[in-house]
């Protein structure tokens, strides 16, 4: 009944993976300040395509910060091809739900990761499927 689930409040008050990665392999940024949310994701990817580290910076409401935190937790240690499969729905579920008016925060998280992955591909010259965003 409360505005946010306990899980959301946990990830909001104690966000995981906050910060930046100097010399990141990929950086993604989505949203705009006029709409009230900007998410920036930093990725460190090893040679096998595993996300060794991920960090975020977010300007936004509690659910934007919680979505960033949860999304980074869900992809950390995963292969890039798995990370791009992360849907906003999975983020919402992992957070035990978000209010209807806040669902777009989880969408931003999904998009920020995809944006960072694309940046990684482009910086590293890796070929990828433009639809699935998976490595070829």
């Amino acid at each position, binding site marked *: 009944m409360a505005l946010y689930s306990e899980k959301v409040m946990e990830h*909001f008050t104690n966000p995981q993976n906050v910060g930046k990665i100097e010399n990141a392999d990929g950086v993604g940024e989505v949203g705009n*300040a*006029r709409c009230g949310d900007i998410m920036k994701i930093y990725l460190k990817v090893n040679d096998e395509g595993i996300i060794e580290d991920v960090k975020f910076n977010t300007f936004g409401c509690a659910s*934007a910060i919680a979505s960033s935190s949860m999304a980074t937790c869900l992809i950390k240690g995963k292969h890039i091809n798995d990370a791009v499969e992360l849907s906003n729905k999975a983020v919402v579920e992992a957070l035990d739900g978000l*209010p209807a008016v806040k669902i777009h925060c989880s969408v931003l998280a999904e998009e920020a990761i995809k944006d960072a992955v694309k940046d990684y591909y482009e910086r590293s010259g890796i070929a990828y499927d433009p639809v699935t965003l998976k490595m070829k």
Partner: protein
Amino acid sequence: MTIYADNAATTRLSETALNAMLDLMKDNYGNPSSLHHKGQRAKELVEEAREDIANCIGAKPNEIYFTSGGSEADNQAILSAAYYGAERGKKHIISSKFEHHAVLHTLDKLKKEGFEVTLVDVYKNGIVKPEDIASAIREDTALVTIMTANNEVGTIQPIEEIGKICKEKGVIFHTDSVQAVGHIPVDVNTFNCDMLSISSHKFNGPKGVGVLYCRKGTVLTPLINGGAQERNKRAGTEYTYGIVGMAAALKEAVKEMDESIKYVSALRDRIIDGVGDIERSFVNGDREHSLPGTVNMCFEGIEGESLLLLLDGDGICASSGSACTSGSLDPSHVLLSMGVPVEIAHGSLRLSLNSYNTEEEIDIILSSIHRIVPYLRSISPVWEKIQKGEVVE
């Protein structure tokens, strides 16, 4: 520990009001329309409350109509004047850009019905210019409605001047005094207003009750039709304890007003001065012409809800924009109307104090702000851009 600094949203019920209510809640449960002694006793109490409230605002008892709150009072006042005007070929209404939604949404409804609405500017300081009202008034203006004090930024409007202009031009003038009554002097005669809205829970009275003042001679149409209550202008069995509690709270607030204005303004100034060292932050509105307890600030690079919820984690109850629009994703229409850029308007914080607050509480609030704002900025990509001198959009 809870520090309640959201008194513009609603207030704690005062002991005085609670005690006045309890008698009726326990024993005096009659319906004022009933002829037997229990009903007549309830009626007497309601009429005493009406007289007390009238005295508090310089009105006559038969100019006081009890409603369910400020929103109902605003709706009834505006619709009454609008339809009265329409019957005489007047379908133009003047208001301001930063009225409460109870006013603006009622005007939206009227626009759909063919009324024309002029919303005057509120400028950067959040204060309407009387000359703008004067030049907006037309032959077919049915109503001017301007709030006495704004609920988000606390600025007090030049109601007396506006009232005088309306009186001279023969236009009905309504003022939403929901944030002002009980906090600053309100007098319907110095205001020169024809109608005025009050909400009890904004001055430590009970929730669910308000008043529409309507000057004798100004035509009032019922919003709720039915029984003959409130001289046929507002049907429904009276919320007797609410009415009595409201009167008790208002009498007390008015009696202690001089003192509380001094006390509460000092608390507010302590906040304003206390955040002065935070870079790229500013206070919205006008420090001179402002409610004693309301202060609205913007902190660039952070978003208001996060700030709010982290303050809440420290036990501090505050607000970002007005309570009613929470759940909405748009930044406050009030700040936007004052020319605050959208991206900065997202980072607003409203603290609204009253005489229940203490200096110690203010100091705790200040130390929380000084911890939370830098933290949120440290994780904010917007703040990073600002630091680098980049354009934020």
